[in-house]
């Protein structure tokens, strides 16, 4: 499903070049639950952004479902993200002026589906129930706890029924009990056949994944 070949990512810092990813080769099949670990600054987030089509590598090829991402336009990548990829971030990244329902509804605004409004609302309500926030529907993010915010973010990532969820330290800002609740939600998604790639610093969290890779200085060690 995902094939990375010789992925490099460089940043130009004034006159200096910083190589963040060097020759990354990685394959992920559908239904995998992959954890990425490694020290800070090793390029984990950068890799995840490339996997999520938010960023483009400096060189190398990225085949996603048989298509070369490098050749796709910005618009095509955006459409693809809306329909097939869900992001979960360490800092939740919710939109403050929107309430829980509206934050979760957001992907429908950009995914070009033939779905009618009642059906969308039903799907949003369903995923809200799934993450256990039925009594928080009208709350703004500032009125939620960290765990609740992360559940909103997961609900937003899952509402389009994407194939892949990319999570960047989803439990990093949560206590271990809340972290386990979040991981339980990932397991439901995984059990339903979804693919998960998750960055974490926590061995215990990583142990939930089927596979674990280590990154250091822009390289992958198994």
């Amino acid at each position: 499903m995902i094939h990375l070949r010789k992925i490099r990512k460089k940043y130009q810092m004034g006159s200096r070049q910083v190589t963040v990813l060097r020759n990354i080769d990685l394959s992920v099949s559908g239904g995998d639950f992959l954890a990425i670990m490694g020290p800070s600054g090793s390029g984990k987030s950068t890799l995840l952004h490339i996997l999520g089509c938010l960023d483009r590598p400096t060189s190398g090829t990225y085949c996603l479902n048989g298509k070369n991402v490098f050749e796709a336009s910005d618009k095509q990548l955006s459409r693809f993200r809306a329909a097939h990829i869900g992001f979960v971030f360490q800092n939740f990244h919710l939109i403050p002026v929107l309430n829980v329902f509206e934050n979760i509804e957001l992907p429908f605004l950009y995914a070009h589906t033939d779905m009618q409004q009642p059906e969308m609302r039903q799907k949003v309500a369903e995923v809200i129930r799934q993450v256990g926030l039925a009594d928080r529907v009208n709350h703004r993010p500032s009125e939620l706890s960290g765990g609740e915010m992360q559940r909103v973010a997961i609900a937003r990532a899952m509402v389009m029924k994407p194939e892949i969820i990319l999570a960047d330290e989803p439990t990093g800002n949560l206590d271990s009990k809340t972290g386990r609740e979040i991981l339980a939600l990932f397991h439901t998604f995984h059990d339903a056949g979804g693919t998960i790639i998750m960055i974490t610093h926590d061995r215990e969290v990583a142990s939930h994944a089927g596979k674990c890779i280590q990154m250091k200085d822009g390289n992958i060690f198994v």
Partner: protein
Amino acid sequence: MFDYFKIYIILKTSFRSLLQHKLRSALSIIGIICGTMAVLTMLSIGEGARQKIISQIGQLGIRNIFIKSIPLTEVQKQKASEHLSPGLNADDAVRIIKGIPYVRTAACVKEVKAAVFSAGAELSPQILQTSPEYADVLNLSVQHGRFISETDMIQKNPICIIGAGLAENMGVEGNIGRTLRIENRVLSIIGILNPFYREREGNTSISVRNYNEIIFIPPDILDTENDLTEIVVQIKETEQVIISGKIIKRIMEVAHHQVEDYQIIIPREILRQAQKTRRTFSMFLSAVAGISLLVGGIGIMNIMLAGVSERTKEIGIRRAVGATKKDIIFQFLAESVILTSLGGSAGILLGAAAAKCLSAVADWDTVITFFSVFLPLLMSVFIGVFFGLYPAWQAACMDPVTALRNE
């Protein structure tokens, strides 16, 4: 694919974002409010003036040309008699009718100053000696009886036609068949004019007589030796008015030996002049509106740029969940257009209020038309798009990863 649901969500979100900073949003649209207000007020003043002049000229008759005698000073009288100018007289009318094929008819008018008595009471209406054509040329009609006829003129019948207001004031004495006395002549009333709606005085050169307080009598009933007050010439077709005016000027110059003891007034010419003035006015208006809206637009752009940099993370989030550049542009454009059209609407309301105040307090004629509301509204929307485009474009071009890393 743009359905109403998405537009609704985008508008709702935009409103929320604007309400986050109520004061800031309100301050940013002051320029737009002032601009649209100025446009609406000035348009309605212009339109009021235009409608007034059109209606005044309509009452004078667009196909008419007025030749009025000018009261002369002693020096001018001297000169007039030296040059043998005869003063405005019936021969002028004959010359014009014979000399210009475009003339349909002409009426001679003489104002008479004399005391009027009705059943012993003295009245002070204006007295006009006119030929029968006058009613036709000025589109006057009687509600009872008839106007002066050819026979009245030839036989010098002692009759008169009175205005509606005068008839009402005179009570029973103001009915047909009753008489009134001018100096020592007793005249019987044979007609009463229809009530006449008179525009308030604007431009003195095109003032319209008050036909409510008037008495018409046939020529040569009273002993008056002074010249005619006015000759009204009616031209067959509107297009021939200007050229006829020029010929009349020539004829009069020759007949009066270059003495300017008359004045030629062409309502159609005045209308043209007014339209020219209006065009100048419109250009001035556009300049004022342009400047204030430009300033207003820059204010909007400033606020939008601030909004974009504050909401960098939101842009990153939207991009991550699948928004294209176009979606981001649309989101921010929606916000700036909402801002400016709110400003525009407020400006329109204030402008309409200002126009009404001017009408009530300063006695100016203002008319608010669909155009004068639509134009400033359209302008405010346009400003929103124009000045919102650059900030929106900046937002769209932001790199999603950088935007997400922004804290």
